[in-house]
Structure formats: C-alpha cells, structure tokens
C-alpha cells in the first residue's frame, strides 16, 4: 500500500508511471494545471484499478503558494510515501537568448518552483523517516550546450540540489531519486525529429518504477545514457566549447 503524490500528472512520463502503480491498495493525488486533461488521466487510473484517486488543479508558476500547497496535499492524502515531480517545460533556447523575461520565467518554473516544494517536503520526509522523493531531471543537466543550456542549467542545478537533499535525508531512510532521461517521445518533444535513441514514456516509467523499488539514487534512462553522458562529460572544456552541440 502506498500513498502517491504526482506533481504534473498530465505529463506523459508521469501518466505512464501512475499506470504502473494503479493497484487497489494504492492511493493517488494527481496535480496538474489543466483540469480537463487531468480528469482523463484520473478516469483511466480508476478504471485500471487504483484504490483511490483524487485530483487538484494547480499552476506551479505560483511559487509563493508552495507552502500552503504542500499543506493541502497532506490534508488530502494524510501521509505521502512517494512523490514524483514531473511538471516542466522545454524552453526555446533561441527565443530565450533574445528575451530575458521569458528566460527568467522558464528558470523559475524548472528550478525555483521545484526546489521550494522540495524544501517543504524535505521537512516532512525528514520527520517521517521513510519514503521516496523522485524528480525528473535530465541528461541535459550534465553539461551545458549552446542549444539547450537554459533548460540544462535548471536541470543541472536541480541535480545538485537533489544531491544535497539526498545527503541530508540519507540517514533518515528517505530515498531521493534523480531521474535523468535521454530522448523521450512525449508532447514536450513533439517537434523533434526522432531517431534510434528515442524511446516511449512507457519505457522510462518502467525504469523509474524499478529504480524506486531498488531505492536507487540516480537513474539514467534508458541505461545507455549513462555511457553517453560519461563520454560527453569527459571531453575537455577547451575542445567542448568549440563543438556545435
């Protein structure tokens, strides 16, 4: 039996993960900003057999409401065993280079909005001495590239925040899982041309579930991204800076 909180539950990856947890003895609270879309997700999970599904619409741009928001989640669920952070946007790098207001907005959602919630949850999980905090980072956070460094820096920062949180909560038996997917075919990447390295969100979800079960710290998914990023990270900066990436 688990109580599961999913933030950004209309994300394709999150939805697939929720399906893997759709069992009679699990209870879920799904949060997303588009309530009609969220309703479709909830109905599906109910049919698939999730014990109890509640939903809430919330715009995570409202950073100032973080504290109150987490409080309300606890009011609905009572306690939380697993929380997944899946909301996010993929900023248009070229547009952001020209528009600082836009860039700021993207950073606020993809970094600030997440870490304030993590901070609130950190206190609760520390007391609770159990559970899993899982956050969708990205391989893009492993190294800055001209084509995607706004998103990359938010994900990279997030990854460092998670390291610290993990370090802090490790002795309280809390799993802090950073998920680093590679290329995933979801609405977020619909304008990309797909190649052989791409996988569906269902594959990512299976890997996440296994990583949660095994209480892993960092997950590269699919597995080959661990090797790809090892290579990418090891290129000396004086060479890397000249590459068109």
């Amino acid at each position, binding site marked *: 039996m688990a109580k599961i909180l999913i933030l950004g539950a209309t994300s394709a990856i999150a939805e697939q993960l929720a399906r893997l947890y759709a069992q009679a003895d699990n209870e879920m609270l799904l949060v997303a900003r588009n309530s009609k879309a969220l309703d479709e997700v909830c109905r599906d999970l109910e049919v698939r057999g999730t014990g109890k599904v509640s939903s809430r619409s919330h715009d995570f741009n409202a950073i100032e409401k973080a504290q109150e928001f987490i409080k309300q989640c606890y009011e609905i669920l009572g306690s939380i065993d697993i929380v997944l952070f899946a909301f996010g946007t993929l900023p248009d790098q070229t547009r952001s280079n020209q528009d600082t207001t836009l860039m700021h907005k993207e950073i606020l959602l993809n970094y600030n909005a997440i870490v304030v919630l993590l901070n609130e949850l950190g206190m609760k999980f520390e007391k609770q001495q159990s559970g899993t905090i899982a956050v969708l980072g990205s391989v893009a956070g492993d190294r800055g590239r001209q084509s995607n460094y706004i998103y990359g820096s938010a994900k990279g920062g997030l990854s460092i925040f998670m390291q610290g949180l993990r370090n802090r909560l490790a002795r309280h038996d809390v799993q802090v899982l950073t998920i680093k997917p590679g290329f995933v075919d979801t609405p977020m990447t619909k304008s990309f041309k797909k190649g*052989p390295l791409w996988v569906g969100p269902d594959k990512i979800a299976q890997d996440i579930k296994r990583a949660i079960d095994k209480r892993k710290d960092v997950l590269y998914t699919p597995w080959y991204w661990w090797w790809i990023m090892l290579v990418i990270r090891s290129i000396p900066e004086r060479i890397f800076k000249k590459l068109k990436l």
Partner: protein
Amino acid sequence: MKTSFYTSWGNRGAVPHFATIPANMTQAHVIFEYDSSIVYGQGRSYGDVCLNTNGGLIDSRYLDRLLEYHEGARLITCQSGVVLKNLITFLETKKMFIPVSPGTANVTVGGMVANDVHGKNHHRVGSFGNHIQSLTLLKGDGSIEECSENINNELFRATIGGLGLTGMILTVTLKLKSVENNCIAIKSFKTKNIEHILALFDETDDEYEYTVAWLDMYSSPQKGIFNCGNHANGDIDCAAPVKSKTVPVNAPNWLLNGVSSKLFNKLYYSKASLFEREVTSYQSFFYPLDGVEFWNRLYGRRGFYQYQFVVPYGSFLTVYMDILKFIKKFNQPSYLAVLKKFGDIKSIGMLSFPRAGYTLAMDFPDKGRATLKMFEAFDKLVMDAGGAVYPAKDARMNRNVFLQSFPAVTEFIKHKDERFCSDFWRRVNIDG
C-alpha cells in the same frame, strides 16, 4: 510548421505530413488547421488509408485512456488510440476478452472501427463493428456526435468501416466477452490441398469459434496448416511470451527473396507439429507475427503489398485456381498466404469489407509494374465473381474496383466529412 514523415505497414516509403499529436481530448478539438486531415492509429494498414501526403495528420497515440468499465454489462469505454495489446492486458485481469481480434495486437481501437476489422471467428460473431455499443465522433466543424444503433444510426454505419473519413473517433464503447482464462485450446491439421482446407472449414464451423488456414504457395498442390481454437475452460494461465524481437531497420532488398521465403514456408510446415499443443496463449494463437516487431522491414526498402479479397463461397475455388495461374504466369509467388471463411452475419458499416464467402490474403514483395499488372488480373477475377478487395490492405485498387466492391459508397458520401481525406480516398477518386 515542420513536416513529419509517416508510413504504413507496406513500408513503401514515408511521406510528409503536418502532424498534430493531441495529448488529450480537449486538444483534439483544435486540430483542424489544414484543408484535410486523417487520423493515424498505429499504421498497421498496409496501404494509404491512414496517410494524407502533404496534408494534416492527427496521430492518436496519446489518446490511450480507458474511461469506463462495466463488469456487469460487459462494456468498456476507451479512447480511440488505445492499443489492442494494452487493452487485452487489462481485460485479462477481469477475465474478459475482445469479441473480435485481427492478426496483430499492435492496432488501435479507432483503427479497428474505421476498417471494421475481422478475426478468425467471423463465422460466429461477425466483425468488430457488430460489437460496438456506441462511439463519439469529432467532426471537422468541431462538433461532437454520439453515434449508436439508435442515435445517428446512419453516421454510425458510415463511421464503422468508414476509413477515417467521417471524422475523428474520440471514444468507443465496446461489448466484451467473458472468458475463464487467457488460454486458447487449439487443434491444428496439416492439409494436403485447398479442397482439404475448405472441407475442414465446413467440418469445424460448429465446433470451433476460431478457424484459419495458412497456405504454402510454393508447394503444388498447396500444402497448408489449418488451425482451430476455442477459449479454454478452467483455472489455467497461459502468460504471453515475455519479449518480442524487433527489426530495427529496413533489411537489404535481397534478404527476403524467393529462396528464403520458400525455405520459411517449408520450415513452417514441417515444424507445425510443434504448435500442436493443447492450450496456448493469445499471443501465439492470435498474433504469431507480433513475436518479431516490425517484421515488415524484412522486405527491405521497396516494401511489399498484401492483396486480400473476398468472393462468395461458390466461386472461390475457380477464382483461386485462376489466381494460381496468374501467379505462375507473372512468376511472383506469394510469401505468405492466409485463408479465412466469413460467415453470413451482416456487417453494419456501409463500407465494411466482411461478407459471406472466403477471404484470401496474400503478401507479395513490390516488384514494380509486374506486381501491379498481376493485381489487375486478380481484380478482374474477383470483380467477375461479385467479390471485394479490402481497403485496409490495399495500396493500388482503382476507382471501379472500389465502387464494385462497395456499392453503398453512394450512401456513404453523404456522411463523409469535408475536412477529412486520405491518399486512399484521392486515389479511388470518388469525389471527383
């Protein structure tokens, strides 16, 4: 807007589309930005019913949610992009099964409606369309129509088997059948010739719900394997094989040739006894080809065709013999051939393919003009016998063949949505 490339199962080249991939049903409402659109399910049609070159394409892959399940009434309502294999996995837990299943589980519910697909049990239960309680259709003007036997009956009958041309199917409510387990009790026979197969169809009709025959078109007379099955009784479990292999890229054109496919057919026949187990999984009985994902790529870059037709019982043998003559004359043997017997339950769709008679499906590699010439010769035989060619498998039939196969097209046109079109529809040129 960028173009995306989509292809169909015949794998004869990907063509550009302006694709939208709605993440939910609300997003599906704002999709009609193009002069024409077609919905793309899993692209398991062999030809061009799911393509709309340089036009709009609506990819239904994210509309894959189950919306309602009524155990007592044996009904499920789901979105049109739900893939059959996922639906079956869910239904297994409820001891339910779908009433009609095609030869692959990698198809969407919407695609099964739009082609009014048939299974190995047509003689018992008719086609997929005979089991639809209701559906909702998003029209090109943005309105949503609920359709069933009693509401919007004509639009209902136009949409079932309607090749995606009446609008976008959003949801489908499907009648289910209850089963005791996930096993099929099977029996297979090795057959000596076509007469032997036809006799077996007649003999097994009453005893078996599912019957199908595979033919080795290299042998003469054509040897074959006749499979029949029923849902098994009792508390048993036939979990499906764990993982399928996949063909990642197109094979070189020479890989599948006369020699290798001849060998395959021979091997299949001689190994057939191995399949003579008592009970087997859905996967190995209904979807044997799904074991190798994207096997269509084995045909290489040029791709392949399937020719599937139906003719009345009485004319089948003559048509079949004549087809063999043409295959010989054009020297293009079929790499894979499957024969089924349709019963006389009437399909409800205006453009539904299933009707009383025998239906033969044959795969041929694309050898250019010669292949097309041979198909034209087949067409003539099938038309003279008062039969039909199946659009889901077709990439080349002409206007006359389509009109003769589907005389109710005159009624259908009234319900075709003007914002929807496909390469198929342009090809058979009914509008113009």
